[in-house]
């Protein structure tokens, strides 16, 4: 909870402050490198020059959770990896977001029936904001997911919420 959050009633000033705050947050979402499997290759392609995630302000992939806003879970999550994934998500600072990229991160993907070591969906481990279907999703799909996340960030407000 920020210090000025939840104090003021919705109004012109609060809305303007909201607009500026959300604008600056959504135009500079720093992803954390969490490419686990094949979807990581598509994430890398999104970061390369043809699809260029940097024009959305998200080109600075931070390797450490302390400096990252967004965790793109790209790939199959195993039980062994789930513990580390949870710990790293805990070590991220708010406001933090999670994108589940690819079928494996959404629901276990092709390993849903017989995968003996696969977590059937990363939302069993961390709360997910945006799901991007595909196996793997095209870079344009990842950018669409990023834009949906930007819309989600635009909807945030620091005004007092009605109970």
């Amino acid at each position: 909870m920020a210090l000025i959050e939840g104090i003021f009633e919705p109004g012109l000033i609060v809305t303007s402050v909201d607009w500026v705050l959300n604008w600056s947050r959504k135009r500079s979402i720093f992803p954390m490198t969490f490419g686990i499997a094949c979807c990581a290759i598509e994430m890398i392609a999104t970061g390369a020059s043809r699809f260029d995630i940097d024009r959305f302000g998200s080109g600075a992939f931070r390797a450490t959770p302390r400096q990252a806003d967004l965790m793109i879970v790209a790939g199959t999550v195993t039980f062994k990896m789930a513990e580390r994934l949870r710990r790293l998500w805990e070590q991220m600072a708010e406001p933090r977001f999670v994108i589940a990229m690819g079928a494996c991160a959404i629901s276990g993907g092709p390993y849903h029936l017989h995968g003996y070591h696969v977590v059937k969906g990363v939302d069993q481990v961390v709360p997910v904001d945006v799901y991007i279907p595909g196996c793997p999703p095209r870079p344009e799909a990842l950018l669409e997911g990023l834009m949906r996340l930007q819309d989600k960030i635009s909807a945030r407000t620091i005004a007092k919420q009605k109970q």
Partner: protein
Amino acid sequence: MMTPSEIVELLKQHDAASVVSAVADGPYPHVVLKPEKLVAAAGFLKTEPRLQFDLLRCISAIDWPARNIVEVAYDLISTSFGHAFAVKVELDRADPQVESVGGIWPAAQWHEREAFDLMGVMFLHHPDLRRILMPEDWPGHPLRKDYQDVVEYGGLKFNP
């Protein structure tokens, strides 16, 4: 470069008692050895000047519940001559044990760890026999035909 039948002949000349059966034709020429004679035969295969199988390409463990055995196959290649061959051992399915060949081919150490992890084969005198793919405290050996999936692990349900 020796043909598979010549390799089988050489092995039989070296120690005929260790060979249980041999297949020299087809896509996968191999011999089946007795498990207790494996290390001696492996040493022969590596050091014999006409064979020189210095590269262990792969160790695979196969589960045959109908025949009640676990088969372990060692794929060998000679980098000097270019011939390829395979050696198999058949182990009792209830308690599969065989001597480790890690002293002869160091690559065997990780392959044997994988065979232990996923199939439960015990390799005697292995310097560091522990799971390599699954978590350390995983119950069971997943690639066995009668493996039961866990219900939950580490607080996560297996099937939501």
